[in-house]
């Protein structure tokens, strides 16, 4: 019998393991002591913890999750920007060099967004001023990478008692954005980006160029600290708002460049939005796996991509998993498996992120049981 991680790898490669695996990032499970409260920003104590405590508690939560659910493959990656550290953001680095200011807005949960990006008005800004900074000369890089190394050391220690495949599920994972980093790295607002594709396409291409090169540089430094990236997840939601023509022009070439810079890794695209009209472009961008949202019709999707792309997800983390009955969860899993896995290459997971405020134990168990019940049947069929 294969381990959940081996099943995951086979499915990523488009093949049929003995059974469909459930692979999921840890989330609060209501009704299980030690797992009812996550160790992330949703935790009311989060802001009081120092960096090391945050990392320790997060790993502790993940290990408890893995121990409690040995039939699951636990997923957890390292962000290219050092867990969203704003000091490594492109806008933050470029702003003083360009004589500009950027402004952050802190949220009550410890996150932040740009309340004013580097470029307020793209129509008048000369993008010729932009360049890719040498990240190795940035003093904050060392501090961010120290955090990554600290996490890896603590993970090695924490996962030592578990079976090897459990640790393999979280090792070598890196996550990033690409074109959407134009917004997330604080260069322009979403609105300016969307308008710019039509009105100032050359400027948007320059932003894509700079951001893509910066993302690759961030990932290379990350790889230096964490070892070879074997699974690279790119979460670019901006395609949801694009037509085929726009995505082909402003997304595919840049994302493909990131994927090509990390040959040998499994390339995963995450976007829970409705992008069935772009299904063919996901392949063209060099992805092996697509984490698909709950509203996507898997049959329709398979008609376009065949079995050239592994699918991953589809269970609704907003309604079904946290609030549905076990029967509803089972039905959703059955639908996802029978529609998405006929030719292999399917992983049962949430379509999008995990349920933010958790889900009841009975629903997570229904998901695991559904993989056993329908995963084998579907594959043998």
């Amino acid at each position, binding site marked *: 019998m294969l381990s959940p991680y081996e099943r995951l790898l086979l499915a990523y490669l488009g093949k049929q393991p003995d059974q469909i695996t459930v692979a999921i990032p840890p989330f609060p499970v209501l009704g299980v002591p030690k797992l009812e409260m996550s160790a992330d920003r949703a935790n009311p104590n989060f802001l009081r913890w120092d960096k090391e405590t945050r990392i320790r508690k997060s790993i502790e939560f993940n290990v408890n999750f893995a121990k409690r659910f040995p039939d699951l493959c636990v997923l957890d990656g390292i962000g290219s920007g050092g867990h969203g550290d704003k000091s490594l953001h492109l806008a933050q680095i470029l702003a003083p060099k360009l004589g500009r200011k950027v402004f952050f*807005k802190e*949220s*009550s*949960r410890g*996150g932040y*967004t740009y309340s004013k990006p580097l470029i307020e008005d793209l129509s008048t800004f000369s993008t010729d001023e932009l360049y890719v900074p040498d990240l190795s000369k940035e003093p904050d890089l060392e501090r961010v990478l120290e955090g990554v190394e600290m996490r890896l050391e603590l993970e090695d220690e924490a996962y030592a008692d578990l079976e090897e495949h459990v640790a393999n599920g979280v090792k070598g994972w890196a996550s990033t954005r690409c074109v959407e980093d134009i917004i997330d790295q604080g260069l322009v607002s*979403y*609105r300016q980006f*969307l*308008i710019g*594709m*039509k*009105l100032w396409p050359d400027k948007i291409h320059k932003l894509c160029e700079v951001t893509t090169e910066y993302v690759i540089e961030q990932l290379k430094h990350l790889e230096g600290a964490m070892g070879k990236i074997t699974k690279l997840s790119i979460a670019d939601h901006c395609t*949801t*708002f*694009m*037509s085929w023509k*726009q995505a082909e022009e402003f997304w595919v070439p840049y994302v493909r460049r990131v994927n090509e810079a990390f040959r040998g890794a499994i390339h995963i695209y995450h976007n829970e939005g409705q992008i069935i*009209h772009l299904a063919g472009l996901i392949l063209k961008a060099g992805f092996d796996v697509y984490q698909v949202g709950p509203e996507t019709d898997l049959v329709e999707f398979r008609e376009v991509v065949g079995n050239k792309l592994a699918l991953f997800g589809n269970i609704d983390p*907003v*309604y079904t998993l*946290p*609030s549905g009955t076990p029967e509803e969860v089972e039905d959703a899993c059955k639908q996802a498996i029978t529609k998405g896995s006929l030719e292999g290459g399917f992983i049962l997971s949430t379509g999008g992120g995990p349920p*933010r*405020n958790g889900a009841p134990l009975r629903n997570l168990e229904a998901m695991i049981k559904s993989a056993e019940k329908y995963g084998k049947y579907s594959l043998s069929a």
Partner: protein
Amino acid sequence: MSDILEEVSCRFADLDLNRTLALTKEALGKGFSAHKILEEGLSKGLDRVGELFERKEYFLSELMVASYIMEGAMKVIENKLKSEAGDGGRRGRVVFGTVEGDFHFIGKNIAISLLQASGYEIFDLGEDVPSEVFVEKVREVKPDIVALSALLLTTVSGIGEVVEALKRESLRDQVFVMIGGRPTSQEVAEKYGADAYCVNAMEGVAAANKYMDKKRGLNLDAVPL
């Protein structure tokens, strides 16, 4: 409709920024009222954009371009519009925010862009907005409409909290409450006492326009939408 206003409408629907603005100026120069340019040229163009969006020929990026063009055109006709209308030329005032606990802003900002483009004055309270902040703003600016956005199932109840807070302060009857966002629905609107559920930003503009038309007609009874 006159040829030039038809042309404004067509160029707008094609998302041709420069031609739309040039034609808007030309129409003003030819003596058309700002109101007529807005209603028969720009708004018709925006309606056409909405139809193309519904048919999935346009995507959100095109909607955003349409709102940008509309903003530019509004600047061209703004002064004339003000001189023609006693209320500053605005269709109405909207207090807009994402409910407490919810940090999503894309949908809200798209709706705001389109409402602004359609002539509404917007007071954007941002994201993660407690109900008391909505109440304070309503008291301060006396809006016609309160628009609430929520993207998480866990934050939808924030809609009810805002409505209840408005009721407690005897402000509820003075405003039209519209809601939108992925977990919202007609049932959610009814459950929490909102007046309208808007499936997308274009529908939000339509609901606001319908309400304001009724209000301006001095029919202040409940507006079925």
